[in-house]
């Protein structure tokens, strides 16, 4: 059964994969999502608008069967990015292409077709399941909505899906509150899988779970990716979680991607000061000698009134000069080490144009972060 899905997925795209460098499954350009700040009736009447710049100009691509990890602190806009990419939120600006089609303005039937191809796994497995529905109904709903199966065929398919995610089909008449966190997330995965999507946006799918259960869920997701030929956008605040699942990683700060690259490069040769500080924050059991810990001070600035220039300049341990406050650095290719691929590893920092020796002299990380 699974091989059948696999072949059907690859057929439709001509067998492209992450390596082939063909047209990406998903790509976003200049994507923005701004929310109005909750205001009183009178403020709205007089048009005194304030906006939260949750996602503020994101470019990204995702290839068939690839996993892109998106990381950043809480409030950096990564969940909003996921929901905008899946069209749960209307983008404020920018374009999204999925499977060769522009989807940022899809409506009606086109949007419904998109809902079949793009599914979402949510962060809180209890909150994402309607407490008044049995888990069987929850998993069967997408089948009915998209006319995939009804009646007995639907029941059979639901049973298959339960088995696929490691749950006994006998449990389908139970309610969500009767399950453990890990089981609930399996139900959430089964629901996402029901429509045989091409892309799953996983919004911190394991951060509400025990560490031991996290590994099970991640392994399940990896197995399903193989079986169904899925692509993932995997959102997390924890770098060590995305490390295990991602082919590439994008680091977000204040609604922008500040660095992206292959997982290995990000971990072994991070270029952006923010990525370095995130890596430095990962607890280590061995307590590597010589590793310097640098703590970021305070909270990220408010996305209502983002800083000028580089969004990170207010907290940056490698702050250079006025240029950081005046000009916003663009994402550009960086060459961090011999094995890194400058075509795919990009970072947005003014150090990219400066002398590396000066940087090494000033940086609190020294010259060899992560290496």
């Amino acid at each position, binding site marked *: 059964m699974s091989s059948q899905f696999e072949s059907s997925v690859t057929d439709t795209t001509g067998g492209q994969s992450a390596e082939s460098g063909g047209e990406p499954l998903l790509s976003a350009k200049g994507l923005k999502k701004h929310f109005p700040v909750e205001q009183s*009736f009178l403020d*709205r009447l007089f048009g005194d608008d304030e906006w939260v710049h949750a996602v503020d100009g994101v470019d990204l691509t995702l290839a068939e069967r690839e996993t892109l990890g998106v990381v950043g602190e809480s409030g950096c806009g990564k969940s909003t990015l996921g*929901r905008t990419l*899946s069209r*749960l939120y209307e983008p404020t600006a920018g374009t999204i292409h999925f499977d060769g089609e522009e989807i940022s303005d899809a409506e009606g039937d086109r949007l*419904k077709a998109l*809902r*079949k191809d*793009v*599914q*979402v796994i*949510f*962060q*809180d497995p209890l*909150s*994402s*399941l*309607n*407490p*008044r*529905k049995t888990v069987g109904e929850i998993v069967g*709903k*997408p089948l009915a*909505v*998209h006319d995939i199966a009804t009646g007995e065929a639907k029941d059979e398919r639901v049973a298959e899906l339960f088995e696929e995610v490691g749950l006994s089909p006998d449990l389908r008449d139970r*309610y969500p*509150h009767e399950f453990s966190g890990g089981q609930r997330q399996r139900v*959430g995965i089964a*629901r996402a899988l029901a*429509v045989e999507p091409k892309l799953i946006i996983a919004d911190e799918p394991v951060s509400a779970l025990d560490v031991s259960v996290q590994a099970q869920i991640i392994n399940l997701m990896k197995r399903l990716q193989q079986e169904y030929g899925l692509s993932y956008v995997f959102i997390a605040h924890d770098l060590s979680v995305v490390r295990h699942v991602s082919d590439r990683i994008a680091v977000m700060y204040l609604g922008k991607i500040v660095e992206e690259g292959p997982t290995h490069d990000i971990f072994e040769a991070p270029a952006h000061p923010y990525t370095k500080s995130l890596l430095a924050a990962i607890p280590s059991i061995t307590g590597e000698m010589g590793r310097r810990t640098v703590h970021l001070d305070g909270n990220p600035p408010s996305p209502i009134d983002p800083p000028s220039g580089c969004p990170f300049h207010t907290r940056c341990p490698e702050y250079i000069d006025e240029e950081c406050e005046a000009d916003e650095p663009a994402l550009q290719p960086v060459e961090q080490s011999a094995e890194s691929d400058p075509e795919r590893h990009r970072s947005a920092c003014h150090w990219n144009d400066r002398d590396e020796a000066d940087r090494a002299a000033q940086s609190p990380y020294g010259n060899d972060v992560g290496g």
Partner: protein
Amino acid sequence: MSVSDLVESAFSGSSESGKTFGIRSDLLERFIKTIRRDLRAKIGFLVVALFGLSAIFAPMLAPYDPMSQQFPILMPPDPLSANPLGTDSFGRDLLSRLMYGARISLAVGLGAVTFGAVLGILIGLFAGYYGGYIDDLLMRAVDVMWAFPWLLIAIMLVAIFGQGFWNVMVAIGFAYIDDFARLARGEVLAIREEEYTMAAKSVGLEDYEIIFEEVFPNTVAPLIVQFTIFTARAILAESTLSFLGLGVKPTTPTWGALLGQGRGFITQAWWISIIPGIAIMVTVLGINLFGDALRDAFDVKETGQT
């Protein structure tokens, strides 16, 4: 023969599996379970059943015609006589009048609240779900309703449209729209933040399906409590309007009208007012207890023992 046997036999054979508005059919089982284990629920159910049945079957059960003036006037209650609850100032049998009165009072009470609940809940669901300008528009309109005393609105509506069963029902129910709207909206605002509404959207449900299948069933518990409390209030409201002479029709026996007619004789014949008063009080209490049981039945997390 216990109460629970009675309840079960009353509902036996009606456990089909189907759903209306996402509300589960095992509701009935849960409801019976609640009544079985909870004394207050039993009392509430008995009272509602007793008054409800005597209202429905009044023409068969009532010993006399409620309008016929065939007895001596102002006879005090005597359980062993022909008029167990006595007679009024025209020599009419009070027990018969009370049973017929229950028809109007309960029907107007339930009807008025249903009217207010349906409109109010719809307003609240849409205002809460969509937010923004829709919310502003709907809720400001509701605030305007709220600013008027209900009695004033009811009197105005009855004055404009005239007396009569349906008019009185609407006049009373109109005043409940805002309460239901506000309560429903508050619930929706909380539920809208739950990820399952997002999940429903990502599955491909339309807005109206999300509102009625995902959101509404989760707002039901507090709305049921509100519904029963307001049914009790509506019965009182009908009594108030009847008492003022703005009720269904001056000659129709309703509990409020009975109570009002007795006020001139309160010193000589207390029973004419007091007995309908007691009937109102017991019904109101019974409905509240019944509503609590219904709310428990709606809670899927209630597993059995409390």
